[in-house]
């Protein structure tokens, strides 16, 4: 199984860039790497997804090295509203749709 490991918590201040790294040593060849964000009392929300190298959208960037055994979610200039839990997921390609959620990284952004 492609298990993920990420820091349990991180603190940051408004305006800073935040990088959250996820390890997934057993990632399979066809697995994508997906990041979700969850605010308190809400369901997880898709942020970004990638397979290799770098992906950027209006919310974040995702950096994936060549060996794909880790990935880094980069949030530019965070604000208080970015306080949330961030989950790194790697899909199982032998049972489609069975994304495995780890415990996530609780990001706290302070003024």
């Amino acid at each position, binding site marked *: 199984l492609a298990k993920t490991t990420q820091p349990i918590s991180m603190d940051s201040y408004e305006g800073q860039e935040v990088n959250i790294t996820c390890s997934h040593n057993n990632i399979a060849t066809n697995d*994508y790497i997906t990041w979700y964000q969850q605010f308190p009392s*809400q*369901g*997880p929300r*898709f942020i970004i997804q990638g397979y290799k190298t770098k992906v950027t959208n209006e919310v974040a960037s995702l950096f994936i090295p060549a060996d794909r055994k880790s990935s880094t979610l980069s949030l530019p200039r965070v604000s208080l509203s970015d306080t949330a839990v961030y989950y790194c997921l790697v899909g199982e*390609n032998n049972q*489609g*749709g069975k994304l495995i959620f780890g415990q996530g990284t609780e990001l706290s952004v302070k003024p």
Partner: protein
Amino acid sequence: DTAVSQTPKYLVTQMGNDKSIKCEQNLGHDTMYWYKQDSKKFLKIMFSYNNKELIINETVPNRFSPKSPDKAHLNLHINSLELGDSAVYFCASSLKHQTLSGNTIYFGEGSWLTVV
């Protein structure tokens, strides 16, 4: 406008009761899921349905029975509720039942179940 909606949002009930949580998606997706999030915030898949057909059943007690009348609806019925069933239950949907093509899962707002 809500893509994945589930009701009720909050439910407090006594041990031994039977309760249902309803879920509907208006995204035209083929696949729907039920996830459970415990107090430690771990999200675990319980069931998935693809076009009304059960695909994933993750070693969930028989007291939990999902029902999909059509591909836009996936309800969760729980019999003989126990204290350990207290959790947040999330309904979700995705276009297809595949991760190979970078499938995105859309979650509902959650249903907070408390068994007393």
